[in-house]
C-alpha cells in the first residue's frame, strides 16, 4: 500500500514549490530504494551502504551548505523535510545523514580552515568520504564537559589519548571529528581512519538502530598533525553547537517516523475486522488515532516554525531542545500506541511500527536525552540550572 503522509493542517500550503520538490524527491528515493530492503537490513543488522552513492548523488549529504563546497544550499525547511522523509523510512539512514551533515560537515564548515573545508566538504558531500563524531564517552554522556579524552601539544604534532562510545558511523568512517581537552579546554580534531593507535570497533547486538553502524572509538597515543585541529572554536560551545544542528534534523525526522507509524496503523485499523466491524470504528481505537494525529500535527507545526526561526537566524539552542524533546517523545509514544493497535500482528516483521518504536528509543536518548532537554528548557525559563 502506497505511503500516505498525514497533513491534517494543510502544511503543504505553506511550502514553496522547491521545498515540495525536495520532499517528493526524498520520499520517492526512500520508497524506491530503502523500503524494499529495510526489513532485511534491520533483521540482519546491516547498514544499507549501497544507498549512499545514490543519496549523495541526489545531494542529501550536507544539503544546507554552499554550492562552492559541492552542496545544494537548501534552506532550513527543505533540510528539515529531508530528515522527515528519511526517517519515514528508518531512523538509521536519517542518523547517517544527520551525522554527516550536522555533526561532521557543520564543524568543518563553521570552525575549519579554508584548506580543511576545501579538502573535506566536497568529499563528504559526494559520499566519497564518510564522517563520524566523537563526543560521548563511556562514562560521560549527558555530562560531556567531564570528558577524559586528552590531546597533548608535542611541538610538531598533537598526541591523542582516550575513548569515545556510541558513535554512529564510527567503524565505516574515513574521518572522525573528535572533541578532546587540550590544556583543559575542549578542542576539535580531525582524525583520519588508519592513524596508528586509532581503532573503531563496532558495537554489536543492538535492539535499536539495527540498520545503522554504532561504534566505540579508541585512541592510544595517536599522532595528529597540527593542521588537523579545528581552529575556529574553543570550549564546549563547539560540540554543543553541532548538537544543535543535529537535534534540529532529529526534531523533523521523528515526525517522519511517527507519520510512517500512523499511516500503517490507520490502514490496519480500517481493514482489521473484529466483532464484525473494522477496529477503527471502535471508540478506544479512534481515541488513539485521534491522539496520534493531534500529536503529529502539533509536532509538524513546531518544526515548521522552528525552521522559520532558523532561517531568520533567530533560533536559539533551547528552541531546538523543545522541539527535539517534544517530537521524539511524542513519536516514541505514538509508536508504542501504534504497536498496541496492531495487536499480535504488531510484533511481526510484516509491520514496521515495532522497528520504528525500537529505533525511537535510541533517538529519544541520543543528542540530549528527553530529561536533559527538560532541564535545558527549565534553566532557560527559570534562570536556574538544575544539573550543576
Amino acid at each position, binding site marked *: 500500500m*502506497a505511503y500516505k503522509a498525514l497533513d491534517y493542517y494543510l502544511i503543504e500550503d505553506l511550502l514553496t*514549490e*522547491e521545498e515540495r*520538490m*525536495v520532499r517528493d*524527491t526524498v520520499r*520517492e*528515493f526512500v520508497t524506491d530504494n530503502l523500503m524494499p530492503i529495510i526489513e532485511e537490513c534491520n533483521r540482519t543488522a546491516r547498514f544499507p551502504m549501497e544507498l549512499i552513492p545514490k543519496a549523495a*548523488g*541526489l*545531494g*542529501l549529504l550536507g*544539503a544546507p551548505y554552499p*554550492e562552492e563546497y559541492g552542496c*545544494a*544550499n*537548501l534552506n532550513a525547511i*527543505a533540510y528539515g523535510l*529531508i530528515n522527515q522523509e528519511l526517517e519515514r523510512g528508518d531512523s538509521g539512514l536519517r542518523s547517517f545523514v544527520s551525522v554527516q551533515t550536522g555533526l561532521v560537515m557543520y564543524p568543518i564548515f563553521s570552525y575549519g580552515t579554508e584548506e580543511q573545508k576545501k579538502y573535506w566538504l566536497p568529499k563528504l558531500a559526494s559520499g566519497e568520504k564518510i564522517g563520524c563524531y566523537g563526543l560521548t564517552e563511556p562514562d560521560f554522556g549527558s555530562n560531556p564537559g567531564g570528558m577524559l579524552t586528552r590531546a597533548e601539544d608535542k611541538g610538531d604534532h598533537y598526541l591523542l589519548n582516550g575513548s569515545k562510545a556510541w558513535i554512529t558511523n564510527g567503524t565505516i568512517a574515513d574521518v572522525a571529528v573528535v572533541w578532546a581537552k587540550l590544556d583543559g579546554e575542549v578542542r576539535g580534531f580531525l582524525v583520519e581512519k588508519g592513524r596508528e593507535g586509532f581503532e573503531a570497533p563496532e558495537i554489536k547486538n543492538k535492539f535499536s538502530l539495527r540498520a545503522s553502524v554504532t561504534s566505540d572509538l579508541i585512541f592510544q597515543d595517536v599522532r595528529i598533525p597540527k593542521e588537523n585541529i579545528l581552529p575556529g572554536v574553543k570550549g564546549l560551545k563547539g560540540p554543543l553547537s553541532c548538537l544543535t544542528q543535529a537535534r534540529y534534523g532529529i526534531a523533523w525526522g521523528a515526525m517522519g517516523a511517527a507519520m510512517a507509524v500512523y499511516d500503517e496503523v490507520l490502514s490496519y485499523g480500517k481493514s482489521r475486522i473484529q466483532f464484525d466491524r473494522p477496529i477503527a470504528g471502535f471508540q478506544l481505537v479512534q481515541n488513539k488515532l485521534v491522539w496520534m494525529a493531534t500529536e503529529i500535527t502539533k509536532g509538524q507545526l513546531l518544526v515548521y516554525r522552528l525552521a522559520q526561526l532558523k532561517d531568520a537566524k533567530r533560533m536559539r539552542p533551547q528552541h531546538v531542545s523543545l522541539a527535539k524533546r517534544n517530537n521524539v517523545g511524542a513519536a516514541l509514544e505514538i509508536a508504542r500506541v501504534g504497536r498496541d493497535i496492531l495487536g499480535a500482528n504488531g510484533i511481526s516483521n510484516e509491520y514496521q511500527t515495532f522497528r520504528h518504536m525500537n529505533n525511537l528509543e535510541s533517538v529519544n536518548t541520543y543528542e540530549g536525552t528527553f530529561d536533559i532537554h527538560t532541564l535545558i528548557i527549565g534553566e532557560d525559563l527559570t534562570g536556574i540550572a538544575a544539573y550543576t
Partner: protein
Amino acid sequence: MNIFVLIKAVADSEATIRPAADGKNVKLDDITWVLNPFDEYAVEEALKLKEAAGEGEVTVVCNGGDEVPKIIRTALAMGADRGIHVNGPRSFDALSIAKSLVNAIQGKEYDLILCGKSAIDHDNNAVGTMVAELLDLPSVSFVVKLEKTATGLKCEREIEGGLLVVETPLPAVITAQKGLNEPRYASLKGIMAAKKKPLETIDAKSGEVQVEVIAIEPRPPRAPGEIIGEGVDAVPALIKKLREEAKVL
C-alpha cells in the same frame, strides 16, 4: 545536440479519478499533477544524448493550464535547460494539441524531438506521430533503445516475440516506451537550479478542436458474486455454471 521534449502534466496514477459535475471532465480538486511517466523516459533520454554529445540544449514543451509550470520545473530539475509553457486548455483532441506544440517549436533549431509514446490519462498514443506528420519529419514510435549513429539514430522497438531495429536520419520524432531507460531523480541541486532556468509562456494556437469528450461515465458496478455451495458437493453445480453461464469451460 538540440533536443525538444514534448511533455504532459497528468494526474498522479494513485489519484482517485471522479467525473466532474458536467459529466464531461474529470474532477480536478484533489489531483496531484505529475510528469507523465512515458515523458519522463523521453526527458531522461534527451539528457543522456545531450550529455553524450557534450553540447546542445534540452527544451521541454508542455501544453495546458496552471498545472504546467510545476511539471516543466520538474523536468528542469532533472536537468533540462529551458521550458516553454504552451498556455491553453487541456483537451482530448490530439491533433489540436499536436498543432499547438508544433506552433511552439516551428522555426526553432532542433536535431531531435522526443516524447512519451502516450500520456497515461487519455492514452491516445497520437500526439508524437502527429507532430512528426505536421513537421514532415520521420517518426519512430514505442522505442525501447536508442543509439546515435554517424548519420542518425538506431532505434529498437519491441514487437511480438522479438525486436525490430530501425534507423532514421535526423531530425526525427521518437516516442519513448517503458524500458528505454531508468529516469533519474531530480537532485536537490537540480531543484534549486531549476528556478533560475528560463521558462517562457506562449499562448496556445491549436486551431479547431474537432474531437470532443461528451461524457465520462464510471464503470457500472460489478455484479455481486454468488456462493453456489460449499465443499466437494458444490463442484458439479460450479462446473455447470462455468460451462453454461460464464462459458469459460
